[in-house]
C-alpha cells in the first residue's frame, strides 16, 4: 500500500479516511482486520432479552403467529404481509402498508435480533417488545391486545400451551372486553376507554400474555439469520493468503470493496458482520411526505416510557445498560435513523427509512453527491461528496450484491 497523501488532509478538512492509490485487492493489515470484522461470525450472541427464545415450542408458536392474519382487526394482515420472505423479509413498497399506510419503509428483519434498538427510530429495546406494537398500530394490523390474546388462546391453544403451559381464561367479557387496549386515540379511543374499565389485575394478565406472544414471535424471528455470502468466502480466502480471494468476487466487486473500505468511507457506519453500527444517523435524505420525521428524537423517549422496555415488569433481563445509559437529548438524534444492515441489500429495494430511493444505483449516487439537506437537524458532518467515477459507483453496487447469501427460509 502506498503512503498517505498528506495534502489531502488539508483539502478534505480532516476527513477521517484518506485515499490510498494502490491497486484494489491488495489489502493492508488494517484492511484485513476490517475485512475480518465484516465477515459473518461462527456463532451469534444470544438474545438476552428472551431467555427461552431458542426453545422449539416458542419458535413454533412464533412462526404461526408471524404469518397469521387473524391477529389483525380485518383478518387480512400479518407480520409476513410486510416482512415478505421472498424479499428478504422486507417489502417492495416505499412505505409499509397494512390496514393503512405508515410513514416508513419496512426494514428487513433478517439478523435483526443482533442489536440494542429496534425500528428505524429505536423505539423498542428488544425484539419481543418490537413485535407487539404493529399488532395494535392503526395503520398496520389495527388489533388490540385483549382480542389478540383471546384469539390466540382459542385458535392456537395447543401451540400456546406447548410453549407456555397453562393459559389463563380470558373469555369472560365482563372482565375482558371484546376489544380493548391502552393509549388508543382518535376513532379508536373507545378501546382505551374499554381498557380503563378493566381491573389492574386483569390488565396485568392481558399484558403478561401479550408479552409472551411477542417473545414467541421474537423467537421465530431470531431464526432468520443471514447465510454465508460470496463476500465471506472472499474474506476467508484473502485471510488465508490467497491474494485472488478464491475468485469469489469479480474484479468489479473488488474495486467496489476497495471504495467501500476507503474512498467511500462506508464503514464509518456500515461496520461489523451485519454491516451496521446499530446506531442512528441523519444522512440528510429528503422527506418524501410533507413535514419531517423526527426519527430517533421521538424514538428515544418512547422506549424510555414503554411498559415493555427492559426495565418493565415483563422483562426477563437483569441488566439494562443500553436503556440506563441512553441520552434522549443527544443533539444529533434529530431526524436520525438506524443504520440498516447491508446483508441481502440487493433484495430489499427500495431504500432509506422512507423508501425514497428505488435502486442501489440511486443510493450510491446519493452518497456520492449528497443532494439537498435535511428539513430539520443537520446531516452527519462526516458525510462529504465523494467524487466517485462512474466505474467506482458501479463497482460499489456490484460489491453490495456480494453480500447476498442463500435465501433465508421462513
Amino acid at each position, binding site marked *: *500500500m*502506498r*503512503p*498517505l497523501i*498528506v495534502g489531502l*488532509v488539508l483539502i478534505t*478538512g*480532516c476527513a*477521517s*479516511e*484518506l*485515499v*490510498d*492509490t*494502490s491497486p484494489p485487492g*491488495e*489489502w*493492508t493489515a*488494517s*484492511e484485513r*482486520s*476490517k475485512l475480518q*470484522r465484516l465477515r459473518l461470525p461462527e456463532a451469534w450472541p444470544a438474545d438476552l432479552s428472551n431467555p427461552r427464545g431458542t426453545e422449539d415450542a416458542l419458535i413454533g408458536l412464533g412462526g404461526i403467529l408471524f404469518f397469521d392474519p387473524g391477529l389483525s382487526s380485518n383478518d387480512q394482515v400479518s407480520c409476513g404481509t410486510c416482512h415478505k420472505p421472498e424479499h428478504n423479509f422486507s417489502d417492495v413498497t416505499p412505505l409499509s402498508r397494512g390496514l393503512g399506510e405508515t410513514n416508513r419503509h419496512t426494514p428487513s428483519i433478517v439478523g435483526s435480533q443482533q442489536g*440494542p434498538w429496534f425500528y428505524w427510530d429505536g423505539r423498542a429495546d428488544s425484539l419481543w417488545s418490537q413485535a407487539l406494537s404493529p399488532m395494535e398500530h392503526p395503520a398496520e394490523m389495527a388489533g388490540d391486545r385483549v382480542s389478540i390474546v383471546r384469539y390466540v388462546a382459542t385458535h392456537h391453544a395447543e401451540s400456546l400451551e406447548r410453549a407456555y403451559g397453562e393459559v389463563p381464561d380470558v373469555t369472560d367479557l365482563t372482565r375482558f372486553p371484546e376489544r380493548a387496549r391502552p393509549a388508543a386515540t382518535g376513532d379508536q379511543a373507545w378501546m382505551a376507554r374499554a381498557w380503563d374499565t378493566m381491573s389492574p389485575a386483569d390488565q396485568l394478565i392481558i399484558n403478561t400474555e401479550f408479552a409472551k406472544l411477542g417473545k414467541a414471535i421474537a423467537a421465530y424471528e431470531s431464526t432468520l439469520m443471514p447465510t454465508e455470502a460470496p463476500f465471506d468466502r472472499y474474506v476467508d480466502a484473502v485471510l488465508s493468503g490467497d491474494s485472488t480471494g478464491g475468485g469469489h468476487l469479480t474484479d468489479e466487486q473488488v474495486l467496489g470493496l*476497495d471504495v467501500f*473500505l*476507503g474512498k467511500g468511507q462506508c*464503514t*464509518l*457506519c456500515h*461496520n*461489523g458482520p451485519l454491516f451496521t*453500527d*446499530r*446506531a*442512528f*444517523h441523519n444522512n440528510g435524505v429528503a422527506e418524501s411526505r410533507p413535514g419531517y420525521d423526527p426519527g430517533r428524537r421521538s424514538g428515544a423517549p418512547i422506549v424510555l416510557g414503554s411498559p415493555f422496555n427492559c426495565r418493565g415488569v415483563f422483562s426477563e433481563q437483569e441488566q439494562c*445498560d*443500553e436503556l*440506563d*445509559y*441512553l*441520552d434522549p437529548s*443527544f*443533539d*444529533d*438524534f434529530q431526524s436520525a435513523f438506524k443504520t440498516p444492515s447491508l446483508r441481502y441489500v440487493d433484495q430489499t429495494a427500495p431504500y432509506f427509512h422512507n423508501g425514497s430511493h428505488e435502486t442501489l444505483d440511486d443510493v450510491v449516487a446519493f452518497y456520492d453527491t449528497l443532494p439537498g439537506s435535511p428539513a430539520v437537524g*443537520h446531516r*452527519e*458532518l*462526516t458525510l462529504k461528496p465523494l467524487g466517485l467515477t462512474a466505474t467506482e459507483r458501479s463497482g460499489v453496487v456490484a460489491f453490495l450484491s456480494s453480500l447476498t447469501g442463500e435465501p433465508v427460509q421462513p
Partner: protein
Amino acid sequence: MRPLLPVLLFAACTSGPTEPESADVFGAERETQSGTYLVSVAFDPDPPGMSDLFTARATLKDSAGVPIEDATVSLNATMPHHGHGMMTSPRDEPGVCDDDGTCTHPGGVYETSGFKFHMGGPWTVAVIVTGPNGVDDVTYIYDMQ
C-alpha cells in the same frame, strides 16, 4: 485502502488545547495540560466493540507519581470534526464509599461507565481533574476501527 492515520494529523482535527499523544499507544501516562497531574486512560473491554457499551478508566497521580485517591475526575468523549459526542449519558462511578458517603478511589483509579463509540474514526477522550492541586485536563485521541 485505509492505513492508520498518524497522530499528528489527528491533532489538526481536534479542538483541545493539549498536545497530542507522543506515543502510539492510546492512553499512555501523560502530564495534564499544565503539568499538574499524571494521567493514563484505559478501556474495558479493550478494544471496545463498535456501538458496544464500555467503561473508561483513568489513573491519576501527582507529579511525583503518587496515586491521588480523593479527586474528582470526569471523562468524556467527542468527535469534534463530526460535531457530536456520544449517544449515551456516561456515569462517573463513585469508587469505594464509607457509610457517611465519603468516597475514595483506591490506587487513583477512576471509572466512568456507559461510554459508547457509535462511529468509526478518531474520538477525542477528555479527562478533567479537580484535585488537591487544582483543575487541569488532558485529552487523548482514540481511533475507533
